[in-house]
């Protein structure tokens, strides 16, 4: 923490995309190339600062960045009244997941969105969403969370409806907007409840005095439902398939990452604010039930889909279930001796699955978008034989698909193995359900692969997609491959610090 730039990197992770979001319309006045360049520079600088922050967290230790503090790096009692950003292992894990996906989606959108008008606004919305998700993840202040939640909602709804000459995308955006806005208002209500009780908004300050009374429980339930809804966990998942299907292909992974970001925030609030005041066994049990429902309902709804993006959307709902399940098991063991036996392992599995899921889901959504780009249809019954003309997309889809299905040696297998191992010790039946869901997922990926890519060439495809789109998918594939080849390294360097940041036993 010698250099001030390193200390302030959490602020830069937000500041850079916010600045560049409003530079792109200005650059558009000069030339289209400059606009694209400005967008790319903003994206790369954000990724750079994520890397700087994560490197500092992994090599030294985490810190809290307090806005407007006179002394940097020092936490006084006044710090809790200021806006505080936490740069710890968990924030690093989450921002890395967001950064990788944003990079993939950003590079992909150059060619994919070509020919659309108003692209400078698209880039503005894209960078605002990026800032919003990172803000939600980094902040340690409840009201600041609400602000970033709304920034994310507004910007990502704009992205969903960006192709506004199609009625369905506007319909999906309006649906998402209703869900997000009402969710956001109830989040504000629960923040008001907590503020009224404790007179402070900082997570750590509330955690010191939280007593688990009725008001706290009401606030906790509202937060759980709202963030679970944004994360598309099952009873609250109805918006997700429409939104993922109808949003422009290049940004679908980015909409999915806002869900994952909400899940990160939910876990941080549960672990930091409420773990000492509620029964962790009961709350963990609730997360496990939500997880099982998401896994099972998600995958069974995916069975009957014939639209490729809708099918992957339901698979994505089912993957959220794995994380809820694993983290639920970890959370429920926090206060007893099982944490050392398998609770920490479950958390490792859950968090590793989150970063894996962010990457391979982005890869799957992007390759599905490549199918739509090249053939103009999403209907699996009409598709066929794409492997003849789109060999690279076929390969990328296969790697992403096998990873989501948890086939060894791909990254999805490494994280799922950790989950199976730990939840088996919690209760064997959970591991059996998780395995069954995984097998059905594999069958579904097989179905999509067989229907869309194998068989005789039907002449549907206009040929392979442009190079920048291949590059974007290639970057994500490379990340999946690296995670597959060195799972031990990734777990030790990236996932374990996140577990240690949240799962500290008293």
């Amino acid at each position: 923490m010698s250099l001030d730039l390193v200390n302030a990197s959490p602020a830069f992770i937000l500041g850079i995309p916010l600045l560049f979001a409003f530079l792109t319309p200005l650059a558009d006045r000069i030339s289209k190339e400059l606009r694209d360049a400005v967008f790319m520079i903003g994206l790369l600088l954000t990724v750079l600062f994520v890397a700087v922050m994560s490197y500092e967290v992994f090599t030294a230790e985490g810190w809290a960045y307090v806005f407007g503090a006179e002394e940097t790096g020092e936490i006084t009692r006044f710090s809790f009244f200021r806006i505080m950003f936490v740069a710890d292992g968990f924030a690093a894990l989450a921002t890395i997941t967001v950064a990788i996906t944003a990079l993939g989606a950003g590079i992909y959108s150059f060619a994919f969105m070509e020919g659309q008008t108003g692209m400078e606004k698209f880039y503005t919305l894209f960078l605002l969403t990026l800032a919003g998700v990172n803000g939600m993840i980094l902040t340690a202040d409840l009201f600041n969370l609400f602000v970033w939640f709304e920034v994310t909602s507004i910007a990502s709804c704009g992205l969903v409806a960006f192709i506004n000459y199609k009625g369905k995308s506007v319909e999906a955006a309006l649906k998402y907007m209703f869900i997000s806005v009402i969710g956001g208002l109830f989040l504000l209500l629960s923040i008001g409840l907590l503020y009224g009780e404790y007179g402070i908004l900082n997570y750590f300050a509330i955690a010191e005095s939280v007593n688990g009374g009725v008001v706290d429980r009401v606030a906790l339930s509202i937060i759980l439902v709202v963030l679970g809804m944004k994360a598309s966990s099952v009873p609250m998942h109805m918006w997700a398939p429409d939104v993922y299907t109808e949003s422009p292909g290049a940004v679908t992974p980015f909409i999915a990452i806002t869900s994952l970001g909400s899940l990160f925030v939910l876990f941080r609030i549960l672990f930091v604010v409420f773990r000492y005041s509620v029964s962790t066994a009961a709350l963990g049990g609730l997360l496990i039930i939500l997880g099982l429902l998401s896994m099972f309902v998600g995958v069974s709804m995916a069975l009957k889909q014939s639209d490729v993006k809708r099918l992957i959307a339901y698979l994505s709902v089912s993957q959220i279930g794995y994380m809820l399940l694993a983290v639920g098991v970890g959370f429920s063991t926090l206060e007893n001796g099982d944490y050392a036996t398998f609770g920490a392992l479950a958390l490792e599995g859950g968090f590793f699955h989150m970063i894996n899921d962010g990457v391979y889901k982005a890869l799957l959504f992007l390759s599905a978008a490549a199918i739509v780009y090249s053939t103009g249809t999403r209907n699996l019954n009409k598709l066929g034989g794409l492997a003849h003309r789109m060999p690279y997309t076929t390969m990328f889809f296969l790697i992403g698909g096998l990873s989501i299905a948890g086939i060894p040696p791909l990254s999805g297998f490494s994280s799922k193995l950790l989950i199976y191992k730990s939840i088996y010790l919690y209760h064997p039946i959970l591991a059996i359900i998780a395995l069954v869901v995984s097998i059905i997922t594999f069958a579904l990926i097989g179905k999509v692969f067989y229907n869309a890519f194998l068989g005789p060439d039907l002449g549907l495809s206009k040929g392979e997609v442009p190079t920048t789109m291949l590059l974007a998918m290639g970057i994500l594939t490379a990340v999946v491959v690296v995670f597959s080849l060195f799972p031990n390294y990734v777990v030790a360097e990236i996932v374990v610090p996140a577990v240690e940041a949240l799962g500290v036993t008293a």
Partner: protein
Amino acid sequence: MNSLFYALPFVMVAVLIIMGLYTVLFKRNLIKMIMGVAIIQNGVNLFLVSLAYREGYVAPIWTSAPDVDMVLPTPHALTLTSIVIGVATTALMLSFVIMLKKHYGTTDSHETRRCKE
């Protein structure tokens, strides 16, 4: 009597939020549903402002303030932010409805469910 007086704003908050939720859930017209969202917004804002109120305290403006206790300033700041955000979200939702009306020719929420087809 006094405690009832202080409870009144919170009763009003509950009434507003339930009214808004009812409108969103049971009205078919999209514009009316957005009005419902706006009613919930006002309910939540009223809740935040009521939290800050203390009897006999003055507004938290430091410049040449009398030497008496002040009401909590934070909820007012929160409410201002929330109002601004509320305007933005309402405007965006209404613009979505305008586009939807152009495409589908209706603002009936039962007939704007074509994503599943």
